[in-house]
């Protein structure tokens, strides 16, 4: 890397840095050359880091007051909400923070899909990202169990029962997960332990995610490899830092609105009823961020196949760098892919919608079509598009998009590009 020959100015700094090159790291992070044409969709990486830290800090605080015991869990949450100083604030931030985290991660993932950020040489960054996403779902699910309300209990029952679909060993695995013959105290305490552990695993993976990112450097809206550092880049600090800060603040306004004015809208009323193993709520749905996968699960009539379909829907993303055969990264220059991209977005939203609806009649039919299309997109559309699509000419660099041909062509392309940059997600 370009900054490997950095030497601190002070003697002490040099002495320290020779032994532990923290200053070299700090220097690398500050000077890290970033494409200057990154748009606001790129600020979600920073926002996600903020979300993770917020969840860890508020979670740590909640853990000081929460009691993981089926007889006391619900009451301890009420104690936090009523008596602990600022307990209501901290819990609402943590609960809504999970939703905000997923909102941001979905934008982050779909940004990557649009601009082809998963493609070579960034496959490892992408795969680490998918693992982080999986761990986030595990953490969110286990966290939702902790208040020990009706949705906690029945959500835990339904999700752990998924594993019973595995032939021969399924029942054994479910019993092992429960530590008993139903979801009960042993389940709650182990979920609590794991819920506490997973965020730190995620934190470690985030470090790897960023490390892997800093090897090839950021992708950018144009999707071309750029020389770093060059005219096309700016140092991370202060340019990207201040931009990320601005985007984070806008995000925080939305976040604050949820926390202070509609703190329970993203949750379920049933979770304010203490868990009752004898009564199932009339309408069980997972949290909104898991709905698309829930829809896929329910759209398959066979228990085992449904579970396989649901997990495949997530794991197929890991194979994406090899399923997408196109050499062009950014959808900006792929007129056909761009349309299929938006169909996929709508498809996932539709899946989310039907996931919240009862699995019957028209909803079930729509869920099946949408599920089929989801897999079709990744398994057929993407590889075929890569081979057949006629892409638009790609500029050679960001500042001076020179193309083979006359100066006039260059000029017109530049205008196009500005247009494209503005429209890039339109």
């Amino acid at each position: 890397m370009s900054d490997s020959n950095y030497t601190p100015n002070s003697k002490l700094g040099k002495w320290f840095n020779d032994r532990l090159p923290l200053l070299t790291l700090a220097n690398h992070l500050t000077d890290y050359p970033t494409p200057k044409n990154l748009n606001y969709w790129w600020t979600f990486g920073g926002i996600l880091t903020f979300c993770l830290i917020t969840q860890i800090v508020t979670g740590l605080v909640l853990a000081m007051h929460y009691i993981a015991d089926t007889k006391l869990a619900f009451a301890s949450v009420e104690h936090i909400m009523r008596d602990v100083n600022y307990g209501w604030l901290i819990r609402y931030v943590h609960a809504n923070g999970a939703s905000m985290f997923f909102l941001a991660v979905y934008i982050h993932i779909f940004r990557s899909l649009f601009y082809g950020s998963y493609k070579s040489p960034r496959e490892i960054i992408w795969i680490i990202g998918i693992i982080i996403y999986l761990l986030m779902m595990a953490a969110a699910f286990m966290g939702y169990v902790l208040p020990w309300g009706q949705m906690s209990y029945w959500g835990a029952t339904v999700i752990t029962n998924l594993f019973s679909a595995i032939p021969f060993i399924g029942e054994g695995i479910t019993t092992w997960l429960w530590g008993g013959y139903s979801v009960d105290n042993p389940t709650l305490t182990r979920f609590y332990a794991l819920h506490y552990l997973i965020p730190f695993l995620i934190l470690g993976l985030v470090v790897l995610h960023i490390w892997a990112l800093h090897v090839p450097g950021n992708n950018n809206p144009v999707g071309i490899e750029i020389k770093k550092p060059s005219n096309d880049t700016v140092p991370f600090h202060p340019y990207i830092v201040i931009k990320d800060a601005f985007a984070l603040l806008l995000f925080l306004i939305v976040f604050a609105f949820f926390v202070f004015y509609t703190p329970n809208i993203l949750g379920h009323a049933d979770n304010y009823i203490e868990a009752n193993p004898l009564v199932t709520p009339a309408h069980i749905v997972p949290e909104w961020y898991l709905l698309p996968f829930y829809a896929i699960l329910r759209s398959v009539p066979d228990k085992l196949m449904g579970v396989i379909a649901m997990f495949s829907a997530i794991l197929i993303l890991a194979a994406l760098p090899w399923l997408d055969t196109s050499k062009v990264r950014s959808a900006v220059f792929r007129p056909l892919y761009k349309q299929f991209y938006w169909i996929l977005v709508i498809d996932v939203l539709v899946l989310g919608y039907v996931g919240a609806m009862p699995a019957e009649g028209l909803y079930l039919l729509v869920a099946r079509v949408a599920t089929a299309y989801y897999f079709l997109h990744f398994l057929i559309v993407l590889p075929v598009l890569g081979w057949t699509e006629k892409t638009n000419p790609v500029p050679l660099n960001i500042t001076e998009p020179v193309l083979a041909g006359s100066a006039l062509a260059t000029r017109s392309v530049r205008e196009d590009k500005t247009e494209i940059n503005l429209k890039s997600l339109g």
Partner: protein
Amino acid sequence: MKKFISTFIIILTIFFSQNSSISAETPKLLKTDWTFKGLFGKYDRASLQRGYQVYTEVCAACHSMQYLSYRNLSEPGGPEFTEDEAKFIAASFEILDGPNSEGEMFTRPAKLSDKFLMPYDNVEAAKAANGGAYPPDMSVLVKARKGGADYIYSLLLGYEDPPSDIKLDDGVYYNKYMYGNKIKMPVPLSDGLVEYGDGTLATEEQMAKDITTFLMWSAEPHLETRHKTGFRVIIYLIILSILVYLTMKKIWSRVETKI
């Protein structure tokens, strides 16, 4: 930037419409002018105090409020009885305490730090006394029902004669807002059931409104602080956003790229 914001808003809108569409299935709930809604919503103290009266004189015969303590009655943001009034209220209940130095349980008048007296010793006793139906604990009831305060208010006023095609067993009543329309709670309120100390006319609607306000407070005791803090936080965030935006413009003016 504009494009970004508009797309972001579209995403949020879809996100919201998805959520709100989930909760629209029961018959349209009755609406009333709650003072606690909106950005600056606060509780109506007089209504909370009357609501407490309805709770003790009517609901408390069957419904517990296990997460509330008598001290809550005098805490800011609630009914705000004076501390002496709250002490007096507490002392009118006999609470089981002990064991004493002889190992015996004994009763004593409740103190501010005590939880609300429960009508039944346990869930089973409550069920046995109510034809097998457990009168739910009311501490967080408003948050535990879809539709919240509007739902509770509607339910209290939603008793009707059943349609001719529905047969009701003994001890089961018809309520058009109840899930499945069958409810085991008999009509709880009727005009003049309680006598308000402040001279307010105790109509059925008035009592329903007061008790619902009281239950909303018991479910969200910090609502007023939350609204107040929220307003300050959002104003602060907007100001800081503007400052950071100006800083960003300044910094990025060194490179000619648009942001």
